[in-house]
């Protein structure tokens, strides 16, 4: 499929990707343990991203009233920095807790992960669905 044949909804997407460009994804900027920059957060305290190019995964640990809550592992869908880029620049993931569903949408900006959480309650608690955006820094251990 050449560039003239690709369908697009914005000019940004009108690119031709050759086999050289479309090499293996570079996940190096995403892997590791990411710590919430807000020590007073009531949300996710840290995220551990690991695995292979083929099956990267996320494990989130949230802040509970009595300590950390392990959300368990979840699959990641990785997104790149552009339609012809090899570099991983974000991800989406989701958790179904029974009483609520949580969708995660993340983007790396200036070395931080900016994480949007949307929470949809499925129980009869009559709580409003809510949206939270928080920042996470990589625990690189260098300094």
């Amino acid at each position, binding site marked *: 499929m050449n560039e003239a044949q690709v369908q697009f909804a914005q000019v940004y997407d009108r690119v031709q990707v*050759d086999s050289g460009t479309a090499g293996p994804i570079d996940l190096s900027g995403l892997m590791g343990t990411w710590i919430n920059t807000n020590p007073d957060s009531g949300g996710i305290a840290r995220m551990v991203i690991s695995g292979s190019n083929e099956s990267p995964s996320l494990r989130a640990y949230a802040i509970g*009233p009595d300590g950390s809550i392990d959300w368990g592992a979840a699959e990641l869908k990785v997104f790149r920095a552009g339609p*012809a880029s090899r570099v991983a620049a974000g991800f989406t993931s989701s958790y179904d807790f029974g009483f609520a569903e949580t969708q995660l949408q993340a983007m790396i900006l200036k070395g931080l992960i900016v994480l949007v959480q949307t*929470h949809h309650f499925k129980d009869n608690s009559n709580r*409003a669905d809510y949206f939270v955006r928080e920042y996470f820094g990589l625990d690189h251990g260098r300094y």
Partner: protein
Amino acid sequence: MTQTLSFKQTSDLNPALSDPATKILKADKLLGRWVNTNPETRGIAEISIDRDGEHLSVDIAGVGEQGPIPWPRARPRVFANLEEEAGQRAIALTATFSWEFMMAETNIRVNKGVLVIVLSVTFRDNSGRLDYVNREFFYRQD
């Protein structure tokens, strides 16, 4: 009688979520026509958010080679945004735009008067294009 609330993080227990006022947060700050702050964008030119009866609608025009490209109208999901905007609680939206050849999952909010959209794009065709994430900024044009 008190109800025990299920939770997976402290935010799930935020009293604001059970406040009836949170359920009727107004979308006024999001409504209207929003134009990309970047005149050279090759992505989204403008976004219109309107009331559609009891619901909201989101219309997007992408930048085309010979004029704007209308995206399929989306009906967003509405969330209470626990961040405050100008001292008031606001709402945020998520919306999915779908074509046969691609899908764009978005979140939309207003921060200090600027509308911010983050979109995660998935290609469904065999063009070889790679799924990507992008963010753009918009100012209100009434």
